[in-house]
């Protein structure tokens, strides 16, 4: 257990040095070090700051920081009294530069942890701010009870052309959630089309299917989507691409039609 002997804002006592704090952050600290962090507010705050930085760095893109910006940022950082930070000075400057830059673009809780840090340095109680800023982002709350379920058919107006391939995008808002994707009518598109789960998390449903067998023409029901909605809402649909059996691109109309509602 590496304890530094520097004084803290709240009095004179031992604290973990930066390396030990980072071990605790990474889950590699000894039981004594982990216990110390649980009991010592200052160390707890600093571990949280390290954790925040590490998390921010995970998603951060490499950015060239101009030297004058770097100097300006560094000049805002108060000189640390404890030797631990001096060990990390080189990398900490870069980390802090990115972290402080990120505070301008990240959600509010990222700013909160810096506030918590600033408050604790002044001897204040940062527990409440810490609690807020370490909370996991909850998904957007969705009202489940009392919702209604509705089936929406997806039609492609192919006219006299043979519809061999199609790709569409459907956008939902907070009032609607997709709860199933079904195939269409006829053999060509009976299997449910695949969707991109990543896009769906953003409320977008991209569907696509093709057939190398006989292709239908006219008004083709290519899919049915099952939706749970809090209130009646219009889904937006747009064609991304469509092709005829000869591989020729064309732009048929795409329509959504509600077919059944539970309430």
């Amino acid at each position, binding site marked *: 257990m590496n304890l530094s002997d520097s004084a803290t804002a709240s009095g004179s006592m031992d604290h973990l040095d930066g390396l030990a704090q980072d071990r605790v952050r990474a889950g590699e600290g000894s039981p004594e070090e982990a216990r110390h962090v649980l009991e010592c507010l200052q160390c707890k705050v600093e571990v949280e700051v390290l954790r925040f930085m590490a998390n921010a760095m995970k998603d951060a893109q490499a950015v060239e920081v101009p030297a004058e910006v770097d100097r300006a940022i560094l000049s805002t950082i108060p000189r640390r009294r404890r030797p631990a930070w001096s060990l990390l000075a080189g990398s900490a400057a870069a980390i802090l530069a990115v972290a402080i830059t990120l505070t301008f673009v990240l959600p509010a809780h990222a700013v909160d942890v810096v506030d918590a840090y600033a408050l604790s340095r002044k001897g204040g109680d940062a527990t409440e701010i810490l609690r807020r800023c370490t909370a996991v982002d909850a998904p957007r709350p969705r009202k489940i009870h009392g919702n209604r379920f509705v089936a929406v058919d997806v039609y492609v107006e192919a006219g006299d052309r043979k519809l061999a391939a199609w790709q569409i995008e459907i956008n939902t808002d907070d009032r609607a959630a997709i*709860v199933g994707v079904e195939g269409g009518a006829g053999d060509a598109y*009976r299997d*449910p089309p695949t969707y991109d789960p990543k896009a769906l998390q953003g409320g977008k449903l991209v569907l696509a299917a093709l057939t190398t067998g006989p292709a239908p023409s006219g008004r083709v029901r290519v899919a049915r989507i099952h939706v*749970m909605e809090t209130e009646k809402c219009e889904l937006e649909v747009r064609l991304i691409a469509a092709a005829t059996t000869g591989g020729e691109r064309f732009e048929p109309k795409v329509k959504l039609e509600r077919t059944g*509602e539970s309430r």
Partner: protein
Amino acid sequence: MKRAWTEWVLLALVVAFAGCESGSRTPSPGSTSGRAYRESTAEHEFSRRKLDDGGLAAPGAKADPSCDTDEELLVVEREGDDGENHGTGDRGKNWTKSPVQKPETVEIKRPRGGELRARLADKLVPIPLKHTDVKAQVSIYIASVTVKQQYHNPYDGKIEAVYLFPLPDDAAVRDFIMVIGDRRIRGIIREREEAKQIYQEARHQGHVASLLTQERPNIFTQFVANIEPGKSIDIDITYFHSLRYSKGEYEFHFPMVVGPRYNSQGSMDGVGAVPTGGTGTSGQKTEISYLAPDEITSNDISLEVDVDAGLPIEKVESPSHIVQIERPAATRATVRLAPNDRIPNKDFVLRYRVGGKGIASALAAYRDKEQGYFALVLQPPDSLEEIPNSAREMVFVLDVSGSMGGAPIEISKRTMERCLRRLAPGDTFQIICFAGCANAMAERPLPATPENIKRAMAYVQAQNGSGGTEMLTGIRAALEFPRDPERYRIVSFMTDGYIGNEQEIFGAVRRSIGGARIFAFGIGSSVNRYLIEGLGRIGRGTTAFVGLDESSEKAVDGLYQRIEHPALTDIRLTWSGAEIAEVQPETIPDLFVGRPVVISGRFRGSGVATLKLAGKIAGKDHFTTLSLNLDEPGARHAALPAVWARAKIASLSDRLLFTPDGADCAGAIRGVALEYGLMSQYTAFVAVDSSRVTEGATGTTVPVPVPVPAGVQYETTVPEKKK
């Protein structure tokens, strides 16, 4: 959700009491089940016929003649049958080989025993799961498996079917389709709680809906709501998983039944074993109903595995089941379960040996529009086989709990005996047996002298399976006694792994492992592979599985082959020439003789990447450099993104156990699972048919009871049914 669970439990109790005349059974003290039963029966107005235990009446007299007469439909396996003209699925038909393509060779192999045999006066229990059909395609070392569960409502009221079933512990479940007639509805991956709420809401509004949740990495629950009387609904689940590989031999396995778990006193997060109709009595969050020895169901399973090995296949066999094998080409094999071996009460295991130097392709890659994914087989250095290992301190930990009673304990004894015979003169050894508590054979490890080995064999032979499975006591006894500085410690577990506190066990191993290595033997027909593989992974050793119909010789010899030579340890990978990221597993396991390790990762860019592998062999540095052409890998496989994401979830789940920043890991697991559309402990698949509302209320919840695994004694593992 808590309310919903309570409701399921109460409704399940309705099923338990359904066969009884009103008032013939007394609800458990303090419970409200009696009131719930009366309310529920009044609401649904089921017309029931009396069954001996807990079934609802099937609509139409023809559906289940046994219910009227107590004369049972019999499936009797005769001694000496040759695999023809009998069986549950195709009774009365001859078992013939495929007429479509003339196979090069056809083998019918039958293992010794293991079949569940129906007897006269058995009770046929009507259940909502009619049949399970499994189709697997194996390419390189990745299997793509589709499991079709066929649900059918044999009662005259609407039901919700609930089925607890196993999948391989590394299964990347990535597709879920609900089939209603000829309509196919693809399920949506959502956060678990949200998916459960959507399912409940759809169920209450009368829509046909289904929900798939994960209880353990190898245990899942399928819920299907609002199945109308006489109607059928299929659920298609697709997953990928990697085959085990050792010394030129691949192993595909498909688990068919969840074994009965032992849960420590005070535990509520385990998996409770209950008799049919006993739902809600175990006190555990997850429960599984077992058929009593005199109960049978019509549920059976069919399975087909199509192997494309990429190299000539020298040998194909199933040590667990009777199979038909077709060989359409030298590199391919199609294996099907024989119709007389279709009772889902044991793991299906298929092994095949390929020619040449073994594993087909060292590097497999796949590129999507954003980035690439790769899987790479790290082979142990050839030089390992020439270096002898130092003296060993062998600690054998033998599970002698109730679930091991009968055949499994006898196999453990044979395995132990072979292990003892292979001890080297310089070794020391200790034997620890655990059930309700742990007992060591001697105060301290003994030298491997002939006298001590003889004494050890007598000690092992005296063991019988009974009592609980307090594995923690066995782990502490094996890992926490003082270490011999002159020897390196090998701890060898022999267990079926039937415990419900896997995470507690992993935590204890992680804390106490020190410099020891764990080699875990899974013994039995349906072992808990999640536990066994976890012991091997966290214990930095390896695993082997011995089925009821197998000799343990091969598994023991494999163990000794590995521990007789040092491993390549402390492995570090350095990449250059391409942007490689997030290699899984995060900590590369030791490389033992005959046991390669598969790593996977993401990459950007193209061309040749250089991998420098550094490690230690017997304390000395070892370096290897590999050149990998990402543009021209040995193989391409579209499943690699899902396989990588599943490995990432496994790494995060391990970190969740051992680090204080649990919330970060949980969020990361959720993020990966949603991005790649995979099942996890935080995500679930839900599918709703919103186009139609079924008539009536939500229906009765009917759990699907399953047979106890082959070789496991019902009496010692499932609590007695309350009279």
